């Protein structure tokens, strides 16, 4: 889908996404000319349908993780189903995790923990963030649309 600012005849660009946690999605688009913003509000079914295609409204900034739909989606995953290993030499330097961030990651079920950690690390590296904190995690969740992870 695309959004067109009718008075300016310009395609609006993706600005920000919000996932309030109730399965719905809000995506804000802005007209690059007049700056007017419009919000697309999707109900849980619409949100689910888009996510099942493996796409994120607003575009992804970090690559899709392997089995992201399965690992983020199934309810009864086996704890030891996956062995996630951090690469010995991360592509762009290590991201240091604050104790609070580590604690919060510990709350993520082990079935998806390794994958979620990798997504957060990729997100931080891409933005030149050296230290992972709960605030960065919140921002990443919202930016990447990691609802339910």
């Amino acid at each position: 889908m695309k959004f067109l600012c009718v008075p300016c005849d310009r395609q609006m660009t993706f600005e920000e996404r919000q996932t309030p946690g109730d399965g719905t999605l809000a995506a804000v688009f802005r007209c690059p000319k007049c700056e007017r913003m419009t919000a697309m509000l999707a109900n849980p079914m619409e949100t689910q349908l888009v996510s099942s295609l493996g796409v994120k409204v607003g575009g992804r900034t970090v690559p899709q993780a392997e089995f992201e739909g399965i690992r983020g989606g199934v309810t009864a995953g086996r704890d030891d189903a996956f062995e996630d290993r951090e690469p010995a030499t991360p592509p762009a330097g290590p991201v240091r995790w604050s104790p609070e961030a580590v604690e919060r990651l510990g709350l993520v079920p082990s079935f998806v923990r390794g994958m979620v950690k990798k997504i957060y690390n990729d997100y931080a590296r891409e933005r030149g963030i050296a230290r992972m904190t709960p605030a960065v995690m919140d921002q990443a969740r919202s930016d990447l649309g990691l609802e339910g992870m």
Partner: protein
Amino acid sequence: MNLKIRTYNQVAEAESNLPDQVAEAARRVAVRLHTVQMTLAVMSGKGGVGKSMVSALLAASFARRGMKTGLLDADLNGPSTAHLLGVDGDGLAVGPEGIEPARSSGDVRIMSMSLILDQDAALSWREPRDSGYIWRGAQERRALREFLADTAWGRLDIMVIDLPPGGPRLADLHAMVPDLTGVVVVTAPGRSARDAVARSLDLARARSAPVAGLIENMSGVVCSECGEITRVHEGGEADALAARFGVPVLGALPLDSGLAAAADGGRVEDWTDRKGAAGSVRDLVRQLALRTEEELQRLRLEHPRGGSGG
């Protein structure tokens, strides 16, 4: 009021990222399958005809003959092929190339929901709150695509894909793997199986999916004393169906208590000898695999892969 606004295909200045992302998902599948020589989908008209057993026997037989073999269990809600080959999964490694498939002792590379879910857990998906139903089908399509694209299959001579009973998933698979080499349909004696198989064949034909042939399972009973095979039905149903749809019968396998016990114990691979006395079940399994491969090779020559890169 009639605003003269530009429509979807006329607007292209900014990122039109949703279609791009969908195309990217399809590309990931194509790239992964580029190193897979042949893909074989195993379907059945209805449940209970031993389709997964046939898939497991075929995969094990191909591997036994030295072919690099993958087995993708697309029966997400009733995954049993991994168990049949004695694989229960022990932490799938997430490697640089993707998720490493599990390996059977006979070197079949397997990906299955049973390796991922808690033991005995049914497949269910996170549902958004306040949603009376969920797009289960859409989630399952995504899972199938991830199995295809994100598993580090490596170079394979053949990938066997065990589809769930019934037809609809074939359409999903064929959309993701447009150059599927062949489909085999597993049937069992009896009228209801026959009708269901006819529907499956019709569906495959409607989708222009290449049908390699029919496999009749449970075609008879093996005497546990003398090994003689007795047919339970008059027979001829598979032949009649095959003639009607213009496809071959690739083989028939009887019910055998020894094979059933091996299936329970995860030792199906033991039933894929290179030799085996003529007329024995092992020999029938071997013949079936040979005949299936022969038909796939023929289809592959008939429909060479397009130059689109898979």
